[in-house]
């Protein structure tokens, strides 16, 4: 059943069941659907309904109702974060050709995006229910559900369009009772910014199952608030980035989480040691490491963690990423794209119905990363992930690193080239290097190195703050007489990383 039909069916079947928790309040399926119906009525009153609609990210019920409203009308949503720089947001609006932005806080939208870049902001005001029914039009598989923008090495974010077909394949795979045995009584943690595709698992999946989602308030400065939410809302399912564990590590003994039964990690390499410490807080729960890039819809490989077995199967202390979900195929390829035998490392390639058609309005980048191929007797869409991996003797994929300069900061994808591009443009320098290095708790931080730069770094910092989202800001800028080079004459990033340590 299509995910929108599944949501509508839950609204009809159990209108009074809790659907969403936000800002300390529970909302029922009926309330969420009524709010979405109201927003749809507002949208349908417009002279033209745009095919893609921007949504200013937020942690309130109306923002989630807006996502449902947009999907239900057959449009695609494009999330825009008010805390990201206005110029970056403007580039996203321009690329996605957005004319309309939905926002709970219209004043924040007007601050976050220069008005020249859109025609209208539609305020999502609460409590004006005209009791319009939630509309869900039948959607063709190729119709777009959302476009998310990720870091691009050339200084401009890349749009990843995900279709109803992509999303439906993912949701059907994870909703399969044989995979996770999810139930209507499950309560999901939603800790992700809506610009991050793991959010879709956390908010949309539960609403198709008659379960509920609990939204982490945005005003919490630290990930420690996740622990509070897990306890107080008695959450049963939590998809998190491994960075969260590093923050929670000193407090694990204080946690009481008898309700948590499924704990998934995604977005970064998962260390076995921190997982082991975490497992002692939730001895009754199943822990999994899941893997997948935005280009292949949320996640598409999974590995069930188990203390003794995973200790043996982890490589360099990192837990395997496992095997594909139904509908996805994975293999490791050499530089020429030829499949490699088990045990040989190469580039991880993904195929199947979860793989996007390619980058939005970017044929060059699409051609470099996406291709169509015959697999299992049918034509399949395929994606080169840029991740290096190999298959072990058990048949699980082992992630060993990136083949390019992409890093993960708290689970967010960061192209070091994007930071370098903005630093180069501003300083006029040729030799700049952005480097990620771990801090005491194991999480990564960003540093920027400049060769022979005599000016004060204050204006550069301000420039980067105006161009890049907070998670991409270098924590420190280092001025060196000369950047070290490796034997190939390239900037020696390892040497720079060691300098930080």
């Amino acid at each position, binding site marked *: 059943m299509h995910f929108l039909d599944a949501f509508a069916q839950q609204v009809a079947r159990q209108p009074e069941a809790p659907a969403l928790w936000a800002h300390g309040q529970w909302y029922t399926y009926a309330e969420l659907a009524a709010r979405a119906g109201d927003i749809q009525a507002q949208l349908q009153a417009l002279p033209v309904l745009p095919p893609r609609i921007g949504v200013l990210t937020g942690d309130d019920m109306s923002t989630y109702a807006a996502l449902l409203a947009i999907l239900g009308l057959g449009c695609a949503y494009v999330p825009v974060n008010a805390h990201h720089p206005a110029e970056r947001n403007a580039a996203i609006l321009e690329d996605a050709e957005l004319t309309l932005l939905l926002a709970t806080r219209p004043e924040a939208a007007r601050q976050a995006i220069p008005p020249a870049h859109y025609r209208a902001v539609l305020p999502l005001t609460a409590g004006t229910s005209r009791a319009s029914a939630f509309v869900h039009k039948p959607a063709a598989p190729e119709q777009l559900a959302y476009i998310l923008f990720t870091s691009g090495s050339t200084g401009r974010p890349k749009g990843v369009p995900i279709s109803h077909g992509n999303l439906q394949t993912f949701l059907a795979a994870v909703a399969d009772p044989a995979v996770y045995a999810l139930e209507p009584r499950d309560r999901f943690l939603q800790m992700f910014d809506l610009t991050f595709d793991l959010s879709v698992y956390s908010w949309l999946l539960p609403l198709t199952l008659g379960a509920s989602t609990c939204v982490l308030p945005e005003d*919490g*400065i*630290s*990930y*420690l*608030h996740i*622990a*509070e939410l897990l306890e107080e809302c008695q959450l049963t399912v939590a998809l998190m980035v491994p960075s969260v564990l590093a*923050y*929670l590590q000193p*407090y694990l003994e*204080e*946690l009481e989480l008898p309700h948590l039964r499924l704990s998934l990690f995604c977005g970064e390499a998962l260390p076995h040691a921190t997982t082991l410490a975490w497992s002692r807080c939730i001895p009754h729960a199943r822990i999994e490491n899941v893997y997948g890039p935005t280009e292949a819809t949320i996640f598409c490989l999974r590995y069930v963690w188990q203390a003794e077995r995973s200790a043996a199967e982890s490589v360099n202390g990192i837990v395997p990423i496992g095997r594909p979900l139904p509908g996805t195929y994975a293999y490791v390829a050499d530089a020429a794209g030829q499949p490699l035998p088990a045990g040989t490392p190469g580039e991880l390639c993904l195929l199947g119905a979860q793989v996007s058609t390619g980058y939005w309005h970017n044929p060059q980048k699409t051609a470099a990363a996406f291709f169509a191929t015959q697999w299992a007797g049918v034509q399949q869409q395929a994606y080169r992930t840029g991740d290096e991996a190999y298959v072990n003797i058990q048949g699980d994929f082992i992630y060993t690193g990136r083949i390019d300069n992409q890093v993960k900061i*708290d689970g967010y994808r960061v192209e070091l080239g994007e930071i370098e591009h903005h630093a180069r443009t501003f300083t006029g320098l040729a030799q700049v290097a952005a480097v990620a290095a771990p*801090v005491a*708790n194991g*999480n990564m*931080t960003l540093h920027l190195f400049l060769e022979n730069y005599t000016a004060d770094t204050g204006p550069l910092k301000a420039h980067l703050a105006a161009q890049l989202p*907070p998670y991409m800001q270098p*924590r420190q800028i280092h001025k060196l007489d000369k950047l070290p080079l490796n034997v190939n004459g390239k900037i020696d990033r390892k040497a720079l990383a060691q300098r930080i340590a």
Partner: protein
Amino acid sequence: MKPEIADKLNTVFRSVFRNPGITVHEDMTAAEVESWDSLSHMTMIQEVEKTFGVKFKLKEITRMKNVGDMAALIEEKLA
């Protein structure tokens, strides 16, 4: 906030948030300090614990709404 607590907090905040101009006050929150994010927040907590020789519980940290709350908690723990 007791002046001796404020003095020590100023030292920690100026070093962790890399800003010699910071002067803490009761209502101060992360919104006011540019480099106060989730990562530097944890570093600040650890430095405060070290400086005062105290240990915060998870619930105490998540319930702190501003610097005043933290100062009051430190005072309570030192008493």
